[in-house]
């Protein structure tokens, strides 16, 4: 599977927030090389996943026997018409929905086997979600919104502040920490949302139409930021989009049509 690599050396391993190497990892990655190993196994392994919805007496098949591998550090764009199942696939990947059958292994964990409580804990550690409509908590400042997921990590106040400051620094919003979402533009809100997704140093970042509610300039800005997160910090990103320009930012573009993944992935670069 052809894919663009950020470099050619060994991968820098991300630590979890509790291991407290997040800031160190940022420092290393900002300085330059985030490199991967061609031979390593995929970080996401999806096998024969099927998902149906029942609407009244009608059973709608959304995903049919879908299999997909995503390697660590990959930037994958999922495209397809409305109702093709791309958001459903994203939700399954993020552990916020459950498949009817099949297997989803992320970072070596079979998430289909996790209970709701285990899944919530898993999400807090391994998934950063970027929404189309940012979904910031309106009564919290940018800083507090980014800090929110860290309350589930057991980090000290000082550590949390350091992580939040680092995340907001990466998205270039250090000067807006005390601003409420209503005081920020759409693009800035989305950058705060990205910082929030990033702050726990998750295994994968999933983004559902992250530029869908933004103007062209803001969309380009957000896409540039996501590209940078992938290149400089080696973040594995799965993005659902309708926008071909947004998809160009990814290494690989996969098309979904009526719940079936295309046979031949498209390389964007």
């Amino acid at each position, binding site marked *: 599977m052809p894919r663009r690599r950020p470099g050619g050396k060994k991968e820098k391993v991300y630590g979890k927030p509790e291991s407290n190497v997040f800031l160190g990892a940022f420092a290393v990655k900002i300085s330059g090389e985030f490199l991967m190993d061609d031979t390593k196994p995929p970080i996401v392994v999806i096998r024969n996943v099927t998902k149906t919805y029942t609407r009244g007496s009608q059973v709608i098949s959304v995903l049919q026997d879908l299999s997909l591998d995503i390697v660590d550090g990959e930037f994958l764009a999922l495209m397809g018409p409305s109702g093709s199942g791309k958001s*459903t696939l994203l*939700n399954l990947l*993020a552990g*916020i*929905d459950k498949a009817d059958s099949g297997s989803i292994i992320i970072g070596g964990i079979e998430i289909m086997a996790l209970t*709701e*409580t285990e899944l*919530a*804990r*898993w*999400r*807090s*550690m391994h*998934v950063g*979600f970027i*929404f*189309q*409509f940012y*979904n910031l*908590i*309106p*009564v*919290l400042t940018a800083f*507090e919104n980014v*800090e*929110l*997921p860290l*309350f*589930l990590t057991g980090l000290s106040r000082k550590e949390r502040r350091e992580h939040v400051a680092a995340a907001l620094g990466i998205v270039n919003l250090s000067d807006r920490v005390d601003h409420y979402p209503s005081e920020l533009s759409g693009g800035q809100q989305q950058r705060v949302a990205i910082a*929030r997704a990033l702050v726990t140093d998750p295994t994968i970042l999933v983004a559902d139409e992250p530029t869908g*509610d933004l103007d062209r300039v803001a969309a380009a800005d957000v896409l540039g930021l996501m590209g940078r997160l992938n290149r400089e910090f080696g973040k594995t990103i799965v993005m659902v989009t309708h926008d071909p320009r947004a998809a160009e930012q990814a290494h690989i573009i996969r098309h979904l049509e009526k719940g079936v993944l295309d046979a031949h992935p498209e390389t964007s670069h």
Partner: protein
Amino acid sequence: MHILKLLIRNTFRHKLRTGLTIIGIMVAILAFGLLRTVVSAWYSGVAASSSTRLVTRNAVSLIFSLPVSYKERIRQVPGVTEVASGEWFGGVYISEKNFFPNFAVDAKTYLDLYPEFVLSEGQKKAFLADRKGCVAGRKVAEQFGWKVGDSIVLKGTIFPGNWEFVLRGIYHGQQKNTDETVFFFHWDYLNETLRKTAPLRADVAGYYIVGVKDPDRAAGVAVAIDALFKNSLAETLTETEKAFQLSFIAMSNAIIAVIQAVSIIVIIIIMAVMANTMAMTARERIGEYAVMKTLGFGARHIAGLVFGESLIISAIGCAAGIAFTYPAAQWFSDTMGIYVPVFNVENRTLLMDVAAALIIGVVAAAFPTWRAINVRIADGLRRIG
């Protein structure tokens, strides 16, 4: 701490809605507290009754009298310390709207049996020395602006005529729940007047207040007294002062039941209003709860947010309601004056206020919490945008 901040900011996100709900709870708690205080006031006589006092009355009915000769016979019953005869006088001051309880009593023994009616030694001596003397409670004296030495004329309703008295003392209650609206004078004055004006009504007492040495033996003393007059023309019924008071309250049980029911209905109504507020709140924030779940927050966090918000609103409403209960009770007491002798907000009422607010907060949040917890993240996220 951060979650608490979120909780508080969420609570006041819709200031008008939250403010109106808090006012609603405040009014409900105020009404609940006042209604419970009315019920407590009804029972104030029971609460203030002494375990060392018995009341002996005609077994047929309180409206029938007992011979004056019974007094000495009751005094001889083992365990009895003192006996005071009493008669409901039923006089009115100037006009019938000026109602207050007034009794003809054996002055000396009556004051001994009611140590909670605190009278200065000088006033007590002056009262005992003056056959036309009378004593009034602080509240009734204040109501009519009486001072010691004033001449007071009561118009008799049961015992016709104008009855002249000289106010020799004003008592105040030893305890907070002591009735300070009682007016009493010498039974001898009544009896001697009746001997002249209505001899057939003289030499009888409406009831006897009996002092007992040992409250634990009060029941035995009561039985002994009643046995003494068994098969006589005027059989007696002797009971503790508490039971005597309760028998009066039993006559108005229906009213008390209605007041209690209304107080509970008030709470149920505000519970429904509060539940509606919380349901609206949870419905509006279902997307935010879905986002928080996506971030990894679990059911207990979501439940904490919904319950917390509901409890903050009900706690503020409760605190405001309690704060207003005291001045409202004072106003009610001042306005009603002698008609409601004791109108104190009891600690028990405050505890019931707090319990009611807690129940409102918990019940109102129960269903919205259940919904917020159980909504699928994907469905919750779909509500946004």
